[in-house]
């Protein structure tokens, strides 16, 4: 399972991933208190659960083909998160640091563009909005 409704324990993920040592690269995404100039109070993450699980599995398998010696663990949280909560953790272990960094970076970059997960930001002024990194379907922003 790559999705969880419970708080992410990055340390537990690291100990689970450390089957082969050498280098362990950890990325933890954390909910910010602002985005694009607006003060935020939290984020609601929503996933197309079964497809997100399948898509992350495909992502992890793709990384294993490209870097056979690298092992990647991914955990993404769904539900309502507060400022400072970890939303995602990626742990890449490899015999050497170069592959660990590269696989970790590739994992989070691809996750952000292919895995069907969405987030609704809640703003301090009481409003909320779905985040659209592409701006493709964004309504004109009110200032």
């Amino acid at each position, binding site marked *: 399972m790559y999705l969880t409704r419970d708080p992410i324990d990055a340390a537990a993920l690291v100990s689970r991933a450390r089957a082969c040592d050498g280098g362990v690269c950890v990325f933890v995404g954390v909910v910010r208190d602002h985005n694009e100039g607006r003060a935020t109070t939290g984020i609601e993450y929503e*996933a197309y659960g079964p497809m997100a699980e399948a898509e992350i599995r495909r992502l992890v398998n793709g990384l294993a083909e490209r870097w056979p010696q690298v092992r990647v663990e991914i955990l993404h949280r769904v539900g309502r998160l507060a400022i400072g909560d970890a939303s*995602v953790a990626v742990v890449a272990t490899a015999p050497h640091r170069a592959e660990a960094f590269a696989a970790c970076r590739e994992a*989070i970059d691809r996750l952000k563009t*292919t*895995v069907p997960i*969405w*987030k609704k930001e809640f703003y301090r002024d009481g409003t909320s909005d*779905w985040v659209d990194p592409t701006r493709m*379907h964004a309504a004109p922003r009110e200032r």
Partner: protein
Amino acid sequence: MNVKLLYFASFRDKAGRDEESRVLPEGSRVRDAWAALASEVPDFAAFPAMPPAAVNLEYAAPDRLLRDGDELAFLPPVAGG
């Protein structure tokens, strides 16, 4: 044939529902299902292009042929991480 249509995030808000069973003519492709939705939901009709689609939990091309019992979802821009 019947397909199960799922709506997520902003698309659920625009469509006003999270899932439905929809009857489509035999031979319908993913793009035909989108055209049908766009004709009902003005917000969808305003999109410059068809959004990414998934059939049975995998990304699917616009010309993918749909079959009875397929689970189809059009996906808003993803924003995980």
